[in-house]
């Protein structure tokens, strides 16, 4: 690992209070992200991926029961900051987010330009004209004609709206962008174009990405490393090249097997059973009820072990 990673998450916990009990959405997550690196967080819906993103950005709802751990951004502990400091100095300055279904998160009664420039004006106290200039630069990067700044969202296609949302997340030049399912509602060609654009951004602006998705096949388009999340925990962190060939955790292997492929004659397989409820989690390994390789030890919680240079939370790889 790099001596000074861009982002370091240590034992991050985020629990929600609900009428059914405490939802353990993020449970002691450790994560490390280097500069100009893209990490993909994959997992089934309801495994806590989006909550993890929100916990890193501290975009929390009111019913938080517990929110603790450490998050270092360029060696500064951002969890120690109060909300106002965090808002002023971290959000948008260091990290920004493209929310899920970003194309529907734009305000319909403002022009694209008004929304895209807003964070820039607020965070750098630039004038409107300067902000528009910056927005035009960002539109260049994401491949939208400048004239679109003066249009309203309904005049844009889904792909264009998604690009505008990405342009907005770029406008303050953060070091790290969190993308939550950036292409899941888009067409195949648009999807491929957006990933081309993200790759270019990563090369030219040296930005880091956290990409949250359930679509493993398209996630490979940008991933440098892959983190697999299951029932609120990260069960494997692996280098992308290795992960797509040889995933380690039994859950990752099953997940990879379920991906339909265009070529080859391997039949995709499904994972029997359902992920556990985050309110009522099983003791020991959380995947054990669905795991084909379970054995006696699985009733105790496995530690994160280093196996074949990669981190995996499974007793099979115990040294």
């Amino acid at each position, binding site marked *: 690992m790099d001596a000074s990673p861009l982002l370091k998450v240590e034992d991050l916990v985020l629990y929600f209070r609900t009428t059914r009990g405490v939802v353990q959405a993020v449970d002691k997550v450790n994560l490390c992200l280097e500069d100009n690196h*893209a990490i993909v967080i994959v997992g*089934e*819906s309801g495994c806590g991926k989006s909550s993890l993103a929100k916990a890193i950005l501290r975009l929390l709802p009111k019913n938080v029961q517990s929110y603790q751990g450490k998050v270092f951004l360029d060696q500064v502990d951002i969890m120690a900051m109060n909300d106002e400091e965090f808002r002023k100095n971290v959000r948008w300055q260091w990290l920004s987010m493209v929310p899920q279904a970003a194309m529907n998160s734009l305000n319909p009664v403002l022009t694209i330009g008004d929304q895209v420039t807003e964070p820039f004006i607020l965070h750098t106290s630039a004038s409107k004209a300067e902000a528009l200039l910056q927005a035009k630069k960002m539109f260049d990067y994401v491949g939208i004609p400048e004239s679109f700044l003066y249009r309203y969202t309904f005049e844009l*296609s*889904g*792909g*264009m709206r998604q690009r505008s949302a990405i342009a907005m997340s770029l406008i303050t030049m953060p070091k790290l962008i969190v993308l939550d399912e950036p292409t899941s509602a888009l*067409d*195949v*060609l*648009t*999807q*491929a*174009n957006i*990933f*081309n654009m993200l*790759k*270019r951004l990563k090369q030219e602006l040296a930005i880091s990405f956290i990409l949250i998705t*359930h*679509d*493993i*096949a*398209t*996630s*490979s*388009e*940008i*991933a*440098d490393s892959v983190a697999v999340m299951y029932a609120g925990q990260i069960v494997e962190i692996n*280098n*992308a*090249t*290795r*992960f*797509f*060939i040889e995933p380690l955790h039994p859950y990752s292997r*099953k*997940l*990879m097997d*379920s*991906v*339909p*492929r*265009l*070529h080859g*004659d391997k*039949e*995709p*397989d*499904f*994972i029997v059973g*359902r992920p556990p409820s985050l309110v009522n989690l099983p003791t020991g390994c959380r995947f054990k009820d669905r795991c084909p390789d379970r054995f006696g030890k699985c009733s105790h919680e496995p530690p994160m072990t280093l196996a074949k240079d990669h981190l995996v939370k499974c007793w099979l790889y115990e040294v």
Partner: protein
Amino acid sequence: MPLNVKNTPVSIAVSSAASLTKDNNSRTLLSVQDLRVWFELRKFGFGHAGFVHAVDGVSFDLHHGETIGLVGESGCGKTSLMKTILALYRPTGGKILFEGEDISRMDKKALKRYRPKIGYIQQDPYGAMAPFMNVQRILEEPMMDNHIKDRNERYERIRNSLEEVKVTPIEDFLQKFPHQLSGGQQQRIVIARSLLLRPSFIVADEPVSMLDASVRVEILRLLRSIQEKRHLAVIYVTHDLSTVRYFSRRIFVMYAGHIVEKALVSDLLNHPAHPYTQALLLATSEPDGANARVFKEIPPGEPPNLINPPAGCRFHPRCPKTIQNLCGNEMPPEFELGSEHKVKCWLYR
């Protein structure tokens, strides 16, 4: 493995030849001939302002027990085409013959007889079920509408179809409401509902696009086994090429209101002919760590506006292989590359 038997392109030559002979013997179930579905645009509520050419000259035949995958991007007209086949829209021109009868000329009574013969699996299972009805009510509704008056028979059919989609034990589910079910279970209920009236033909509109990857495969396999057991004809509508091959014998690729390529699954995946199909295949990712290091050559731009579609081939403004003075002027006819491989592209003239 119920999913695999006929359609995966493992041995290309053998499987396609075998299914060919089989098909020549079978009767045509559905025949769509030069179908046009246009929607009129109005200015201020009246006054003609043009047409949206959602489906523009589509022809194909579907045989008994055959599965077709219809692939296309959003806005290409695939849902309009399906809804016209389901007799929810009236065609602007052309014919749809179902067992020899033209459904566009049917009156209300005839339509009432036609509709039970086709099943419809909606894209969003939660949106497709009334939230205030329990599973039993949801499943009884179509039978009550179609004069199955005997209570015991209704119950028997519900039991059978729920067992067929493996929602068991059924007593646990009958009294549940849609929001109490998981996404996979909801989709199973919708599939069960489509089977209740014993249709011979099913339209499945993106049946798995809202589901998680692991559940997706499970539902696809289920559909496949039901299709085989009941010998159903299925049109499987999707935008995801990678799932089609596990489900259908032929693939149609639709772009801007036209079907631009028709081929057997293996031909289409291994030898795509139309530049649009080629782009679609290229854009579909396979999980591979090397992807992150290469840029894909994807045609820029977006599908055309269907109010004023481009003259000639509708893909020519984005096409990397445009032929000067031809593609932009004249609409390409359907060229035959093989007995079951047809493509609308001037490259093959």
